[in-house]
């Protein structure tokens, strides 16, 4: 049943208000603006007043434009034909090919997974980047953001991890993506022959801001369907800051009381609902989420990275083209380190980072003009080797080789009794 109305009472930003009846929360509507169709969704109802967010924006909308309620919620048509295709946030194709018509109609933003049906993640995803594999291993079904600032090579890093990772399906959700970046991803995926196992949902910086709200939901809805069919899915989201800013925009148009720097009080819940889609299903596939969060003003206490950090299972900081060894953390690494990886991995990573932290203190001391002690000299040498061998993101080093390298560095810089490592390991691996 299609209900048509002709009078728009209020237009604020990307939100419109109409008088209508028999409309339900979340229902989709079609707004016809000079022959062009824009999609809108009901976000609040007060008696006969119905408030909608218009995904195409409200520029040019007239108070007498036709609005049709579609009696359905936002859906994705799922089939394996999605692979190799590129879509917008509302599911319409942008690769010049026809829309999908046959397939399973799947609600987007569907219900949460029952925690009782999740399993403990247990597979490591190798990236051959020592800063990740050795110190903060990525685990299947993990959700991890890359905290960065504009200008850092986060998209290339994302692409590199995606292409190296052993996943059956890769889903890219681009939000506020520069057109160049979109082309970069497309090219990278084509080059690696990965297009046939990928689906892209793209919102570029030129598209209406609100449309970006749909990207994570539709990407994750597709991922969920693939995972239920037993596929291991890797979802890449870039950039979640654009998504959060869209939430803020809508909240302000809706005259909600902002909680922190203008962001709505439910920012945490909104982000969590998306990130928590990362899952390892008992008896089916998995979803792993890697997301970029650009930190406004390089400030990790900004509400977006701050709330994200509380949701995700760790974070990678990308500073000056390097993954920061201190702030970066993979919370799930304990599940794989020295369990599926070599026995020395666990202790080694701990000691290596502690020593590098000490090195940094020594460097601070020296920069203030103090004489380094003998021990300091050892640390300085260690720091130099660590940065060269471990932190360079261009190096491709398999995990075992990287661990050997760690022992080699320790051996060259220190004598064994000064390093708090278990005796059995020292006896076996010290070089």
């Amino acid at each position: 049943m299609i209900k048509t109305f002709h009078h728009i009472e209020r237009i604020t930003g990307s939100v419109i208000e109409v008088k209508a009846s028999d409309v339900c929360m979340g229902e989709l509507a079609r707004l016809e603006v000079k022959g062009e169709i824009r999609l809108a969704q009901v976000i609040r109802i007060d008696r006969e007043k119905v408030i909608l967010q218009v995904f195409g924006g409200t520029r040019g909308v007239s108070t007498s434009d036709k609005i049709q309620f579609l009696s359905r919620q936002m859906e994705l048509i799922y089939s394996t034909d999605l692979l190799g295709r590129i879509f917008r946030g509302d599911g319409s194709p942008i690769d010049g090919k026809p829309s999908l018509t046959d397939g399973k109609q799947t609600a987007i933003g569907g219900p949460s997974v029952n925690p009782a049906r999740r399993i403990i993640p247990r597979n490591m995803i190798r990236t051959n980047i020592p800063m990740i594999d050795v110190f903060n291993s990525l685990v299947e079904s993990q959700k991890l953001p890359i905290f960065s600032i504009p200008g850092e090579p986060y998209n290339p890093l994302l692409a590199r991890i995606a292409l190296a990772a052993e996943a059956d399906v890769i889903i890219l959700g681009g939000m506020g993506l520069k057109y160049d970046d979109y082309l970069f991803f497309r090219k990278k995926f084509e080059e690696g022959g990965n297009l046939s196992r990928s689906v892209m949902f793209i919102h570029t910086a030129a598209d209406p801001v609100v449309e970006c709200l749909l990207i994570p939901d539709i990407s994750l809805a597709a991922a969920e369907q693939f995972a239920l069919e037993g596929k291991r899915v890797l979802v890449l989201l870039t950039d979640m800051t654009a998504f959060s800013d869209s939430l803020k925009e809508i909240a302000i148009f809706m005259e909600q009381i902002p909680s922190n720097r203008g962001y709505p009080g439910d920012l945490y819940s909104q982000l969590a609902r998306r990130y928590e889609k990362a899952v390892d299903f008992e008896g089916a596939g998995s979803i792993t989420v890697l997301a970029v969060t650009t930190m406004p003003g390089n400030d990790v206490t900004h509400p977006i990275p701050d709330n994200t950090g509380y949701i995700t299972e760790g974070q990678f900081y990308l500073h000056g083209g390097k993954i920061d060894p201190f702030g970066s953390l993979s919370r799930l690494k304990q599940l794989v380190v020295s369990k599926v990886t070599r026995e020395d991995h666990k202790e080694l990573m701990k000691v290596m980072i502690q020593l590098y932290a000490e090195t940094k203190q020594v460097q601070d001391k020296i920069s203030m003009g103090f004489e380094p002690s003998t021990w300091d000299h050892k640390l300085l040498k260690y720091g130099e080797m660590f940065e060269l061998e471990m932190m360079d993101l261009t190096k491709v080093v398999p995990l075992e080789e990287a661990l050997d390298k760690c022992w080699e560095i320790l051996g060259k810089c220190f004598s064994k009794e000064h390093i708090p490592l278990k005796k059995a390991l020292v006896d076996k691996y010290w070089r």
Partner: protein
Amino acid sequence: MRSGKVIAINGNMVTSTFEEKVIQNEVAYIVLNENLRLKAEVIRIHNEFCDMQVFEETNQIKVGDSVEFSNELLSVVLGPGMLGTVFDGLQNPLYRLAEETGFFLQRGKYIFPLDPDRVWKFAPSVNTGETLKGGMEIGFVNEGIFDHKIFVPFNIKEKCKILHIAAKGDYKIKDRLAILSNDSGKEYEINMTQTWPVKIPIKTYKEKLLPDTPLMTGYRIIDTFFPIARGGTFCIPGPFGAGKTVVQQTISRNALVDIVVVAACGERAGEVVEVLREFPEIKDPRTGRSLMERTCIICNTSSMPVAAREASVYTAVTIAEYYRQMGLNVLLLADSTSRWAQALREMSGRLEEIPGEEAFPAYLQSVISAFYERSGLVELYDKKTGSVTIGGTVSPAGGNFEEPVTMSTLSVVGAFLGLSRQRSDARKYPAIDPLISWSKYQEQMEENLLKTRSRTWVKDILKLHDLLFRGEEIYQQMMVVGEEGTAMNDFIIYLKSYFLDSVFLQQDAYDDVDSFCSEERQVKMLYVVKKFVDKDFTFKNKDEARAFFMKLIGTFSRWNTEPRESEEARELEVEINKMLEGVL
């Protein structure tokens, strides 16, 4: 049944009309169709309308949908079978839900919290003719390792006479176990279950006592420096990534209490899954039974509906109070109270209340205090004691403790275990910062500590705590004047404090041995550490001093990870003693 009609929907808040009357905080159902009824709670009444928070997604609700009012406050069902079970915030058992609905939580699907078909062995402990009142025991069933007492429902205030009591035997939870009658002849039938409104504390006990015995967690920095009392409260605030959840989980595994109730409130599902999957496999060394048998999990993770998150901490504390009534020591861990506060904030915003700081409602403080006040050591009617200890993590925005939730919490708890980014960045775990943390219980429990640990315990700890401050001071000076500008004496003090920090305060939660340090071992270790701290060392130069302490730390750390009775541990102990005597 009273009913009404939906007139407005705003996020998870629905406004409805009502007939005749409506009760504040009563449960109502929004009827979408005959198969889909969504649970909600009345939270505000104005003129002929009431606002309700809906415990589900509100998609597809429309104006005109009917509302049914239940006449009951939001309640939980209390009875045997809660241990080892995983509930959502509204007490739906998640495993049985999964059997019916599969991978996903289905909206509007509610099932009875306890297994109605399970048979329990009941043994009566009273006789016909005896007089009882609410909260007194009529008998018990065996729930795992515990005698699960069956009480006269807590809401029966008057004295009642037992007309009938069931004989020893097998019963299901809904089977009648007793019939009571009060003076005016009103009769009550009692079975194994009773319902209790979650927002009202259970108070059927004699009196509340001062918590004066330590609750051992196995964490040295907590038990020795910032102890927690049975029946007390503590909070663990910290920025993300500082290891709150690891601390919380390790405590839930190791704490020396009878029962642990975990309220996973608005946090990651993955963390709950670790508990769900691992606890059944881990044996409690004291009982030899699976840890799950002493654990009850209330799980409302961040992607589950927000209003149910608010309810989940109350569900958890009510269950904790119920087991306390059996004379057990219960530990409630709420992770994280900030998410719960955020749920309050979201609702307050929708109600368009005048916001306080950071848009939190003005009543935040009183809500938080009321929650922590549900802890306590109590003397029960049968003279036994039971306790509820409450520990909550706080996730302050930006890791800054000067925010409403942390501040409100600090003003009501007895111990503050603050995690700092600085320590976690340096991988010093647990990242509880000894320079900011405090516990009021060290003094409150002094009498007991002096008896069980050592006669100078509290004084010794104060002295060692001072050393940490002094060490930090010297370290800061050293950053300015350099090592060479630091006097040898100060340098040694710094090294001693570094040593104390490294081997005693830091602890590996993932090491089989080190993750739990018994009280006995803590006392012994502290005794050894103190000897080094008290000793006057003379070194030729700073390098020699540093090398000595580095070696000491290395040896000590290894000692920490060896089982106490092992050959290696003994060898390491000998080596440490030699270092103390200056032989090495």
